[in-house]
């Protein structure tokens, strides 16, 4: 009787699936915190300084200094939104509650933030071509960023579908007594 109950309960725990090492989650969170800090420093100090530098070196496009600065800061805000959502998702993974509606919403937020960033970068690319603003290196960097963002969005869409399937399967299994 005791053996049977214990085996049964042990199986219950394993239904949650393979568990992620807390050390790994902690390490990723540290990385996220560091990235967030770097993003913040960029927004407050590095980007305005870069914008001023570009305005000095290319006076014909100095009028772009503040619009580009605003867009750049907005891009970093998108990054920070993604980082914040990832942090919350990691917390949910650690607690084992990641197969939920809230997690799906967080993934949606990540996807939309990435799409917004992609649209902004695309806009910068197009305007850069039209107004031929900035050095060619800038255009190359923008194109690479756009490709990276596109890949990220596609990857996150796949991940979202996986999460939906896993959640549905977990919910069905939960109903089994």
């Amino acid at each position, binding site marked *: *009787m005791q053996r*049977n*109950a214990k*085996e*049964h*309960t042990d*199986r219950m725990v394993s239904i949650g699936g393979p568990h992620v090492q807390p050390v790994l989650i902690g390490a990723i969170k540290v990385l996220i915190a560091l990235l967030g800090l770097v993003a913040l420093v960029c927004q407050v100090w590095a980007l305005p300084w870069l914008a001023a530098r570009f305005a000095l070196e290319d006076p014909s496009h100095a009028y772009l200094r503040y619009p580009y600065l605003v867009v750049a800061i907005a891009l970093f805000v998108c990054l920070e939104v993604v980082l914040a959502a990832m942090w919350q998702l990691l917390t949910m993974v650690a607690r084992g509650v990641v197969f939920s509606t809230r997690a799906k919403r967080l993934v949606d937020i990540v996807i939309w933030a990435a799409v917004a960033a992609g649209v902004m970068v695309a806009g910068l690319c197009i305007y850069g071509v039209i107004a031929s603003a900035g050095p060619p290196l800038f255009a190359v960097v923008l194109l690479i960023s756009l490709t990276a963002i596109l890949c990220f969005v596609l990857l996150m869409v796949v991940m979202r579908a996986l999460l939906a399937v896993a959640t549905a399967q977990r919910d069905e299994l939960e*109903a089994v*007594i």
Partner: protein
Amino acid sequence: MAIRVNLDVMLAKRHMGVNELAERVGITAANVSVLKNGRAKAIRFSTLDGICQALDCQPGDVLEWAEE
């Protein structure tokens, strides 16, 4: 659901309460209630095994198919 789980009769025969059955089988008392009230959608064979052991009965004693 055409499958009925008749725990009441066996529980009465063995003079066992819901909580005691839950503890012996290794499921929550809430799940025992779900079984009793006919709201269960699926059951594991290991759970059925535990129920039969705890109530000292056959699956046919607690499971019944009634055409609706």
